[in-house]
């Protein structure tokens, strides 16, 4: 839901949902087995390039990433201090950049800092790669996949309403904000703290509203025959094409070689 699906026809939009999910899985595994920030930086780069390739409105990511920046900084600081030099295999990483306390207390290690960078990049990779999926895949395709996986009806219902509920809530939040602005509230201006503060008055009505809204949503869905039959028709069948198989095989090869490389101690700190 980071970037909502938008119907355009790029190569990524055309790929099968399974190929894309497999790719996402692969990039996640690779991100988590390597500790090196360089490798993780490439993963961020690849995800970003894919987003650009999919013609996604990248600026919107600011909304997600900006609030994360303080967290990133805290992560970098904490990892820098918590890992003692002995935790690292390479000499370079055992280097100490500076001490926080006198008498060599609380050393800040190069390795710790690099580890922090890796963690930050992992998060970025997750955000970007999942955005690729949400921007290029329709909810209907994902639901169809669930159905193919023989997910029980009740579970599918919960997931479907959940998925459909998020944009409804988003829209509601926007409306409340607009309503407040028209009554003299200054929202979306000023510094970070002010912005967060101005968001609080929306939160309460949102929570109150969400119960009512989820009820209404359920009524409306039943009313449109959701769950009336054992099966439902999918307008477009999800289908693996030759391209999907080729790409999946390539992803597989990359994944296997990554795991192999990891076993040869590539990309450790």
């Amino acid at each position, binding site marked *: 839901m980071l970037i*909502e*699906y938008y*119907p355009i026809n790029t190569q990524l939009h055309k790929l099968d949902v399974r190929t894309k999910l497999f790719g996402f899985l692969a990039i996640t595994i690779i991100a988590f087995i390597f500790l090196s920030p360089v490798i993780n930086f490439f993963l961020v780069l690849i995800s970003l390039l894919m987003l650009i390739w999919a013609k996604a409105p990248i600026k919107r990511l600011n909304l997600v990433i900006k609030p994360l920046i303080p967290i990133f900084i805290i992560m970098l600081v904490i990892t820098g201090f918590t890992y003692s030099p002995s935790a690292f295999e390479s000499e370079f990483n055992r280097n100490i950049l500076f001490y926080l306390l006198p008498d060599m207390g609380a050393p800040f290690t190069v390795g710790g800092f690099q580890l922090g960078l890796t963690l930050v990049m992992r998060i970025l990779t997750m955000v970007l790669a999942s955005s690729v999926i949400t921007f290029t895949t*329709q*909810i*209907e395709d994902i639901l169809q996949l669930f159905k193919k996986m023989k997910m029980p009806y009740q579970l599918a219902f919960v997931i479907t309403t959940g998925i*459909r509920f998020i*944009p409804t809530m988003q*829209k509601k939040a926007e*409306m*409340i904000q*607009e*309503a*407040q*602005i*028209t*009554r*003299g*509230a*200054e929202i979306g*201006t000023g510094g970070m703290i002010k912005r967060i503060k101005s968001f609080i008055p*929306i939160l*309460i*009505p949102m929570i*109150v*509203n969400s119960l*009512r*809204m989820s009820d*209404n*949503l*359920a*009524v*409306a*869905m*039943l*009313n*449109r*025959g*959701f*769950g*009336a*039959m054992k*099966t*439902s*028709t*999918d*307008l477009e069948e999800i289908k693996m094409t030759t391209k999907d198989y080729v790409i999946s095989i390539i992803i597989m090869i990359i994944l296997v070689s990554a795991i192999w490389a990891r076993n040869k101690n590539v990309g450790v700190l």
Partner: protein
Amino acid sequence: MNNRPELERGSVFGDVEKFRYADSTADTLTNIKINIKKGEIIGVMGRTGSGKTSLLMLLNGLIPHFYEGEFKGNVISNTMNTQRYRVQTLSRFIGMVLQDAETQIFSLTVDKDVAFGPSNLAFDRDKIRNAVTFSLEAVGLKGYESRMTTGLSGGEKQRVAIAGVLAMEPEILVLDEPTSELDPKGKLEIYELLNKLRQKRDVTIIISGHDSEEMLHYVDRLMVMENGKIVWEGKPEKLFTDITLTKNLGICPPEITEIGKLLSNGDKETLYLTVSECVADLTKKLKLSSTPIDNKATNYNSNSPIIIETNNLCYSYDKKSSVLKNINIKIHMGEFVALIGKNGAGKTTFSKHLNGLLRPTNGKIFINGRDAFNINTAELSKTVGYVFQNPDHQIFAASVKEEIEYGLKAYGFDEEEREKRVKNVLRFVGMENYEERHPFSLGKGERQKLAVSSILAMTPQILVIDEPTTGQDWEGALKMMSLLKELHAKGHTIITITHNMRLAADYADRVIVFADGQVVLDDAPANIFKQTDILNKYFITPPQSVLVAQNLKPFGIMDNLLTVNELVENIKSKLN
């Protein structure tokens, strides 16, 4: 005919002694008897809060399955006892268009949304595609297939909601106020469509709403509700020719039957059901006038200073197509302006520019002589109060008082002043002692008043109200309009959007017609409404009294008359 009529497909039988919502203290429905045959068109009318929606929800099992409570009785829809089948199973045969269009739209694009129902019913793909095409065309949304559902106007959303149910090809079609946000021609087209569905597929139709004129022509039978009971049932012409009864039931009689009634003298009743009937009858009675007069209405007052001026204002939501094209409007202080036009013509988009919720992509807008581009909405809202199209879009607080206080707090009024203003504004709209009520416990009409109050409390000089009477009953609509009139008399400038031509004619002193993002007509109401042919092109039907006056022009009837009373007076003076 079956000897057990409830076993005939497409019929509805109900005998409900009572229904009470779980959290309610009074019965919502009492002693409801329903007997609807296959292929009938039934209209359900009555004041807001009289139980129309609850009645309709009996028919597809939403009551008692989803809305639990005390339920005593039985409803048999399409031979199925609603208590024994799930709502989703019933939905295969009984389609229901819910009152709130927005909650019924799930998918990202229009065609997917309309396909949602039929795919749940496992229609095969070709059938779904055909159903989607047919339904969209039927509701006037051809060409909207791949539009995003989030970028639709209020009326367009309502049309999508109708199409979504149509596509499920129900045998019984239930519609809860489906035309409340439609433009006049769109409304007529929906009734036409229902008529066709009945003729071609023998669909049973039950429709609620406040459209007296259309109900008169299209429904076979009317049910009028009051306090949870069906208090009147019968042919619509029977009800509407009894003006007193109609008004007592809180229903607006069609202008044409009212004209007939007012022209009757004592013993001889004149009954008109259509404009042409009325014109034919009066043509016989009136003498041709040698000098048909062309009455140009006096132009709207335009001496006072200009407070809103737009200069080639253009707007587009997505850089591709422009929704507003070179709008040039000057609004003077103290005017009462009605904006009218087809759904999606750009009325709401335009009005959102007046307080800066939207900023022109091109061109300029001046408020009180200042270029509004550099003034933020919070600042502008001190001068321009904006009430949204749907009150539920703007109500968010947990109590009436909090809701009204929100803006006052933002402006930094102290507690004493806030208290005073809340009290004053609630008295003004007739909602004293409502302070502590939760907004969602209020009826739609009251919520609409609350939405207006929350803006009024800040005493803006200019008041912009988007469709203030949508979904309100006749009395509610009149109350809202007289409220605006009172504000107008106090010196406020009023700009209101409406699809109710009668209200526009009766209350506004200037009407601006939008079509396809442009201003196509801008004049005093009398001058606007007499241009029948042009208006038709812009999806607007003038009030019936105007049409009658138009047709009687050769007989010396003035054609700048707007209200029923003015017209009747004029006709009477010629008859003698």
